């Protein structure tokens, strides 16, 4: 089919406000009151509110790691309900992809990986993954989620949360204490005074590991008779612990940790949630809580902690509060350079998994994933979404190239979203991407079914950028297609190619 992109181009009026909505900001909830007060105190002029098209794309990517379809974007933009942002947020929190995306994030932190250096083994990695995903799907209270892991005993295949104690390279008591501190306290225990780490390590010195007759089965268990040279158990806040005879000291530790009074537990999650959605922790780095690394806005962090505890550790409640705030919904275009005070939404390159899933969705194509050590559990079907991969050892060269975390340590910064030359080469000029565009069933169907060139351009914009073209963009598209540089299918491929290579596509904004 031959298509020349021209004709009467009816510019969809976006009044120049493609990305933001000028006007005074209105605080939507307590978060905004606390953040606005900070701006006022520091004399910061925040960015405007994001436009609907920016918001719809952002909230899909942030909440469910998934690009809105053209239809979803168009429906949202057409919706006249003044409350439509809140309605959309509620809907997204119930999507299956919510569980997929957040299971992926947790699997990074909990190091869900079959092979080196974590070595969970494929079916144990997947048992662990499914337990994590189910917990998120049910919105299991976070305190219960952590307690199930910390106090778990049993088989790696049958009692999935025991894999927490297997998913680390160093399984000596100090190594376990470091991992627990990093994961659930957001603290770098290797920087603590030695006595504090030793005191915490003592809670994990009665942990036994043993193999069974089943291939690669491992039992993690409380071994009261285990010999150890560890110091007395002392909580990281300096209080001595007194486990009863025959009591699993991990229970005693969990009782101390998992309570709103604990100075690390609730704060760690509240801060991480903010980091995940706003791109920067109130305490930054998000997993480096310590006295000499103070929060940017202590009242804000205290408020989020209070909400988390009073909702009985309902993570969705916390997400809902943040996503509905004006602070979260700011435009990415700053008016004062004050990224550390959350005065604009920060640009962030799409996560490797989200990016490849978006490219597959736009083009209707599939990827191949494999493990360097193929086992029956590691074979993935066609159209597998990469945000739903159950094991960090199942991967692709694209995911590696785009900085998917290796899941070696569980540190947040393992995920590297800094752009590299090789990434730009790949998206601009690889056979992989060019083939996806040229052989795209989605683009081909559009060209077959949409006879009106204007409508076709609109659909490509909605599919890739989740918005309508601006007046200026209409003119550019028309000029390119009438220049003879590319015609017919090539013109559509060039347009899709240019849009996926734009800042707007590659970055959350």
């Amino acid at each position, binding site marked *: 089919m031959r298509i020349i992109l021209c004709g009467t181009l009816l510019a969809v009026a976006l009044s120049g406000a493609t990305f933001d909505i000028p006007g005074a900001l209105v605080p939507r909830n307590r978060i905004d009151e606390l953040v606005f007060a900070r701006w006022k105190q520091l004399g910061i002029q925040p960015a405007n509110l994001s436009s609907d098209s920016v918001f719809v794309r952002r909230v899909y990517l942030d909440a469910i790691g998934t690009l809105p379809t053209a239809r979803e974007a168009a429906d949202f933009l057409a919706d006249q309900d003044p409350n439509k942002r809140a309605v959309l947020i509620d809907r997204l929190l119930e999507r299956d992809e919510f569980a997929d995306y957040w299971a992926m994030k947790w699997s990074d932190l909990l190091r869900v990986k079959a092979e*080196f*250096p974590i070595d969970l083994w494929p079916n144990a990695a997947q048992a662990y993954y499914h337990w994590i995903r189910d917990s998120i799907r049910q919105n299991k209270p976070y305190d219960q989620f952590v307690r199930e892991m910390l106090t778990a005993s049993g088989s790696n295949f049958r009692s999935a949360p025991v894999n927490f104690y297997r998913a680390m390279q160093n399984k000596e008591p100090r190594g376990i204490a470091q991992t627990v501190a990093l994961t659930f306290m957001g603290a770098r225990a290797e920087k603590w005074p030695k006595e504090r780490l030793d005191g915490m390590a003592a809670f994990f010195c009665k942990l036994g590991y043993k193999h069974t007759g089943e291939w690669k089965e491992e039992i993690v268990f409380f071994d009261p008779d285990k010999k150890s040279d560890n110091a007395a158990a002392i909580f990281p806040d300096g209080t001595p612990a007194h486990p009863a005879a025959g009591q699993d000291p991990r229970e005693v530790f969990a009782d101390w940790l998992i309570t709103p009074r604990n100075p690390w537990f609730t704060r760690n999650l509240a801060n991480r949630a903010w980091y995940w959605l706003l791109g920067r922790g109130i305490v930054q780095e998000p997993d480096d809580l310590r006295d000499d690394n103070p929060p940017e806005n202590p009242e804000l962090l205290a408020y989020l902690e209070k909400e988390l505890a009073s909702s009985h550790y309902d993570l969705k409640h916390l997400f809902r509060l943040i996503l509905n705030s004006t602070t979260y919904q700011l435009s990415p275009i700053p008016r004062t350079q004050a990224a550390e005070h959350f005065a604009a939404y920060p640009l962030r390159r799409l996560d490797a998994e989200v990016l490849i899933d978006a490219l597959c969705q736009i083009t209707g194509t599939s990827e191949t994933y494999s493990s360097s050590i193929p086992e029956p559990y590691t074979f993935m079907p066609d159209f597998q979404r990469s945000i739903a991969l159950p094991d960090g050892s199942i991967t692709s060269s694209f995911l590696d190239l785009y900085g998917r975390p290796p899941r070696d340590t569980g540190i947040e910064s393992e995920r590297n979203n800094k752009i590299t030359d090789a990434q730009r080469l790949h998206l601009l000029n690889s056979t992989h991407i060019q083939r996806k565009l040229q052989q795209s069933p989605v683009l081909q169907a559009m060209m077959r079914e949409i006879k009106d060139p204007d409508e076709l351009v609109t659909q490509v914009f909605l599919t890739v950028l989740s918005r309508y073209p601006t007046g200026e963009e209409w003119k550019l598209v028309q000029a390119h297609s009438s220049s003879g540089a590319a015609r017919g299918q090539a013109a559509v491929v060039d347009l899709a190619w240019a849009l996926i290579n734009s800042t*707007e596509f590659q970055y959350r904004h």
Partner: protein
Amino acid sequence: MNTTTRILPITRRDMLRGALFGATGLLVTGNAGRALAAAPNAKAKSVIQIWMWGGPGHLDTFDPKPEAGYDYCGPLNSPIETNVKGIRICELLPLLAKQADKYSLVRSLTHDVYAHETASYTMQTGRISGGHDVYPSVGSVVSLFKGYGAGYKGLIPPYIVLTEPQGRFSEAGFLGGRYLPFATGGDPAQTRFAVEGVVLQGITDQRQRSRRDYLHQLDTLGHAMEGDPQVAAAKQAEEQAYELILGDAGKVFDLSQEKDPLRDRYGRNTFGQSCLAARRLVERGVPYVTINYKGGWDTHKDNFQVMRRKLPEMDKGLSTLLEDLSDRGLLSSTIVWWNGEFGRKPKVDWEAPWNGGRNHWGGVFCALLAGGGFQGGHAIGSSDARGEAVKDRPVYPGDLIGTIYELMGIDPAGNLPHPAGDSARVTPLASEGLPVAGHLKEIV
């Protein structure tokens, strides 16, 4: 067009890039700076690592044991003399036998690790796995100390792998994605070596340029946010990418610029042409090139049939590489490093289903080292009569790697930048798990 000098195309972008990465100083501080300061004494400028993944049998290559009998050496029982008196190698390597004055053999490499992924980790980092960290591989360390943060100005990334990453572990370790190798993809033995991202078939340069203009025009958010550090970084990366796509630097991958007789000598197969591509890369100043031997050497079954098929190919490619580097005056500044993650079990598994296969063997195995300050014509260390254990002069992976670093002007006792600020030595101490026997002074 052949040339014997190292070409470093310097463009405005390079200078800008040097300025950017130089100014931020990136990670090169403290003891890492010490490692850099040693650079002027470096003998080697580049490393070509021939990674024999899967682990080739040491008895079947450079440590033959015909006296051990059929149960050990199978049909490969007639090793041949080389051009160095006293050094014999496998009869399937006649071309390498004529080049033995150019390389030295280490016949006492050992780590006692028997699984692929852990042995790969040990052989590429010098360390035993199991600590809190994953250390970077040699290529990533060289990329840190000799790459963009340290004065390298080439457009070709400083750490290239032909053609696929080995994928056993994250090769950059805790250094992070910036130090991962650039994997070329494609196949250099094809008519056109389609390096992923650099060479796109079916798109003319003219269309490339028109698409680039189109993209720039349509980058509405990029225009609205000019000056944002993320947008600036993306723009910078894109300009570099286009220098490779449209400029001359990418021609390094165009093997048709080489004369046919030379291409034939390397062997018209993926390994042979990878060796040729590696030579072209180091000629242009790329500090680290890994050839990840396609298909691997994990010969649990039918070991001897596989050797008869694959060793002649390896013989041709590797011997031509040594000769060609030498002819061009490049061997003195280019280290060629050959080994797998381990050797293979000396006692052959004759029974079904192995039918003359060899299992993994980390007890003792061998390496080949040439150029860049390594002397040729020596064999250091030895294994016992059956090639099962070290007989004398054990060499641990950290010793070998540390010697490569020294020749590259990288201080093995320097520090790597650790994300959590922990101290992390370039090469391990004995207290980290493997003994240290010291650097390979006999051959440098």
